[in-house]
């Protein structure tokens, strides 16, 4: 995150234990600040929490609806499209609509949406379709995931932007 020091006012858990460390971490010399990416423990904790929840939802869905290898992978398709929509919504809203907040983006975006969606499973599913000579299915699944995922981001983004903010 390139922002120098976003508002820390609303982070209750970090205030006690980390304050002493944070003053040192946040105010290194200008050179050190440029060279070392700042690792913020609360940001990491937020990503962990969101990622844990997203992964749990995705894994539960995959276990509840197991799919044969050469059939449309509905669980993966569904989580990917939903996660894309949510990420488009969260990121646009947090960047362009709400006041700067430190932990919502890592919690909801990097964590929840990142953990809920998956790229690797999709690739292995396509590979298995190709192995079963289901060429049309493989091409259709790849194209539909990308087209609908992209459209979901676009839709969520324009939904957020359509709401005017009072100035």
């Amino acid at each position, binding site marked *: 995150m390139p922002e120098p020091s976003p508002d820390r006012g609303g982070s209750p858990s970090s205030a006690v234990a980390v304050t002493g460390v944070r003053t040192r971490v946040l105010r290194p010399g200008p050179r050190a600040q440029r060279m070392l990416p700042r690792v913020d423990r609360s940001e990491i904790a937020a990503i962990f929490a969101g*990622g844990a929840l997203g*992964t749990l939802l995705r894994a539960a869905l995959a276990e509840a609806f197991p799919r044969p290898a050469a059939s449309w992978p509905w669980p993966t398709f569904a989580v990917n499209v939903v996660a894309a929509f949510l990420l488009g919504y969260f990121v646009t809203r947090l960047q362009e609509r709400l006041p700067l907040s430190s932990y919502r983006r890592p919690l909801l975006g990097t964590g929840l949406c990142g953990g809920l969606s998956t790229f690797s499973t999709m690739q292995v599913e396509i590979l298995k379709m190709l192995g079963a000579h289901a060429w049309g299915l493989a091409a259709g699944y790849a194209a539909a995931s990308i087209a609908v995922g992209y459209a979901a981001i676009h839709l969520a*983004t324009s939904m957020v932007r359509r709401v005017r903010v009072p100035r």
Partner: protein
Amino acid sequence: MNVLIWAGVVMIGGTGSVVRFLADGVVAAGTGRDFPFGTLVVNVSGAVILGLLTGLALGRDEALLAGTAAVGSYTTFSTWMLETQRLAEERQHRQAAVNVIASLALGVAGAALGRLIGAQL
């Protein structure tokens, strides 16, 4: 399915997401922000690893923990799509197309390579 396995899914899923964030940050710091190399590297490396796990023919619980939870949370579809859409929005249509095609081609090829390696082990 027991509670321990699902507790494992939660902990591993959180960890995979943090590893993704850190790996993306390291790659992006080295390659700049013009093209989303961080997500590309994360996703393709994850596809290789998941392919490898597929080649190993793991048991049900092992596949859930190592594949669905660990590698699944490490890679991301949503960020790939967001970065593509933002590139297109900034009229970087070529970069956006390259991001889609390269990720997909390298992802499937990587998964195939991983599976080949896994089958040899």
